[in-house]
């Protein structure tokens, strides 16, 4: 009955997954080593480690963590070459997210917090729902055995001041000055905090892998969490292993006060929206009576609601891309019954190709897997593709969301940054393109301070509706996006994709919307009066 050759217990048991004698010997040695460390830890730090069991932690680590972090904790698991940033190498006990001083070991609760919550903006998930509290503590005990630095150590969180109350506008202005001119965060993070500072292109981590300065406008992607307190602690203690330094010495030297650092944290928090953008399925194109916004920076856009479209790596069709730069597009659309205009806004630290970013590009090429074939040898342009079905779908059946297929092609607007142009065409699969000839789509692209703003404009009715989509006010049309960053070694299929969304061209509100409620209310009043009248007549009769 039981066709299973080994039970799960054996597979993930003490002897490890390995089968050869050599591997078993290795594990045995590691166990002995772990045991010695554990015994030593128990003797030297009687309180903190008693509940933790490195041996039990190893079983969990090998099953759930080794795929990325590697069996030896070197950050070289099977998936490592498919990730950027790479998984942490535990052997040097250098941890980004700490409440301890620069270069110090993390406390147990620092480690526990990262395991519980994961690291936003990276591939590290939170384990709260998968592993019990005891199991997570066991993993921590085991992680410590990867480095001798933990032997007998009892790291202490630094003393910090209290977060001051809500910042006034003057507080924020002063914090902005400290951010830009005193602490000079802008050198890496850029003037608007979008990770496009002059030093950003050459940043590498301890292992020499390219690393981006964080885009401070996306606090939901901050590795150590996006609250003011999280931001303060990262600025205070630094992100060890990365270029981000600690600012504790700046406070000690009297250059800024602890309260001022809190204010800078509040300023950085203010660069992101209050809540992470929610995904909505339908982009509504606002209806304008008069002229539409004429450029991406037209103030008319201020009245148009932005919609956030999450973008993720294209890993469906060869060649795939596992670490895309663009993780979301803000889409605004407007029409005036004749013309549709669509504006895309996204943060990208570089206007590709940019020789300043060559080192970064080379770093990405050397770091990322080439499992699907060689990576580009030089920086390509930045790319955007906006995709529609050629015809509004009947029923629910759509073209394949990745560029359609031969049975159901899609209609595209394809933009590149270099040369800066838009082509109109059709596709029968991601990366394919058949130009329609004369392009009816016009565009304007503006790159400024780590942000692209790209506006497409086209008449609602195309010259040839057999190959180009027709936009009908009051109807929904599917829409999907593709984005690539040339500096990140991305191209026509290595890039970021979206699912199908819909664009809906608003129509004037029909009168029935206002008439129906009035009629219903009047009818109810009449009914009520009739009931009361009837009841009172009956009462009088009796």
């Amino acid at each position: 009955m039981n066709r299973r050759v080994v039970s799960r217990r054996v597979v993930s048991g003490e002897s490890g997954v390995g089968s050869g004698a050599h591997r078993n010997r290795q594990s045995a040695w590691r166990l002995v080593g772990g045991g010695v460390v554990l015994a030593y830890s128990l003797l030297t730090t009687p309180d903190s480690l008693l509940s933790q069991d490195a041996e039990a932690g190893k079983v969990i680590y090998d099953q759930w963590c080794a795929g990325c972090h590697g069996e030896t904790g070197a950050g070289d698991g099977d998936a490592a070459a498919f990730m950027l940033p790479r998984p942490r190498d535990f052997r040097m006990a250098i941890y980004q997210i700490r409440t301890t001083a620069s270069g110090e070991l993390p406390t147990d609760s620092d480690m526990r917090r990262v395991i519980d919550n994961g690291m936003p903006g990276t591939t590290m998930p939170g384990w709260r729902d998968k592993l019990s509290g005891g199991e997570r503590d066991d993993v921590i005990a085991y992680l410590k055995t990867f480095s001798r630095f933990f032997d007998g150590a009892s790291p202490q969180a630094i003393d910090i001041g209290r977060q001051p109350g809500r910042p006034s506008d003057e507080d924020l202005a002063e914090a902005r000055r400290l951010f830009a001119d005193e602490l000079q965060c802008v050198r890496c993070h850029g003037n608007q905090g979008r990770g496009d500072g002059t030093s950003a292109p050459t940043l590498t981590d301890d292992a020499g892998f390219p690393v981006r300065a964080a885009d401070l406008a996306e606090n939901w992607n901050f590795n150590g969490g996006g609250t003011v307190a999280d931001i303060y602690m990262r600025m205070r203690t630094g992100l060890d292993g990365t270029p981000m330094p600690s600012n504790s010495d700046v406070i000690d030297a009297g250059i800024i006060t602890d309260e001022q650092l809190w204010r800078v944290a509040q300023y950085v928090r203010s660069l992101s929206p209050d809540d992470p953008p929610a995904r909505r399925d339908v982009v509504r194109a606002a209806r304008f009576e008069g002229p539409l916004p004429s450029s991406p920076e037209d103030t008319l856009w201020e009245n148009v609601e932005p919609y956030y479209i999450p973008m993720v790596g294209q890993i469906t069709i060869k060649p795939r891309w596992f670490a895309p730069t663009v993780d979301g597009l803000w889409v605004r659309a407007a029409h005036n019954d004749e013309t549709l205009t669509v504006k895309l806004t996204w943060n990208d630290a570089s206007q590709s190709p940019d020789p300043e970013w060559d080192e970064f590009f080379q770093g990405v090429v050397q770091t990322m897997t080439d499992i699907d074939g060689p990576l580009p040898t030089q920086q390509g342009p930045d790319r955007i593709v906006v995709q529609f079905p050629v015809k509004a779908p009947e029923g629910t059946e759509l073209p394949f969301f990745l560029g359609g297929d031969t049975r159901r092609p899609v209609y595209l607007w394809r933009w590149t940054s270099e040369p800066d142009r838009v082509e109109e065409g059709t596709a029968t699969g991601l990366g394919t393109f058949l130009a329609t000839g004369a392009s009816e789509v016009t565009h304007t692209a503006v790159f400024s301070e780590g942000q692209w703003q790209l506006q497409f404009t086209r008449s609602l009715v195309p010259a040839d509706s057999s190959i180009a989509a027709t936009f009908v006010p009051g109807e929904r049309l599917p829409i999907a996006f593709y984005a690539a960053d040339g500096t990140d070694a991305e191209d026509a299929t290595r890039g970021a994709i979206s699912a199908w969304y819909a664009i809906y061209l608003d129509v004037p509100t029909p009168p029935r919307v206002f008439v129906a409620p009035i009629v219903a209310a009047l009818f109810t009043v009449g009914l009520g009066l009739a009931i009361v009248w009837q009841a009172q007549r009956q009462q009088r009769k009796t």
Partner: protein
Amino acid sequence: MRRFLVASSVFVFLGCGGGDGGSGGGAAAVDPLGNASITGAISFVGTAPANPTIDMADEPDCEAKFTGTPVDPIVSVSDGKLANVFIRVVGGLPDGPYPMPSEPARINQDGCLYSPRVIGAMVGQPIEITNSDPLLHNIKAMPTENRPFNISQPRAGMTTTRRFNTPEVVIPLECNVHGWMNAYVAVVDHPYFAVTGADGSFTIGGLPAGTYQVEAWHETLGTQSGEVTVEADGSATLDLTFGG
């Protein structure tokens, strides 16, 4: 360059002669073990690899400190002599404890370059890191035997002191704001070390009589070693050669 030579000699001299005050770490002062010295020069033969130029266009304040195009002095050869070589005694020393140099080891960031590029420090000796540029540097130390640090110095005149507690030759320092900035700190458990100046010369003093194995380290050219015997209060010469 002259300034650099003087600085390192003075530092070594003080290191040998002093040993009372300012050693930090609360260690008891140790008297010098002797008064002998090893002197010498490090030569370079052959064609030195060209040093890369640095584009400082984004940092006019640093660029202004140079007359020509700034160069990254990775292999610094002058009249056949090699600068920025770290020399230390690796064998033959009596058991410690050894006297702590009386002055801190010092490294400066000046014109968006480290000066000096290579320094030595004894275990526990304070290392003073100063920013002489009116702009942000971060100093990231990447040891393997010691704990790392990564600190921010956003202003000219700011000095930060750090110590390393485990011998390690060498610990790279880098500035991530200026990707070209590299320096090296060699940490040893005794004070018998020196760094060559622009003329390739060095002096290791304060030694008792004995026969010593000496190793010279250069960041790209590797290591060279030699042996030398000194009399009490005497001076012996050891010249080593890289390249060729």
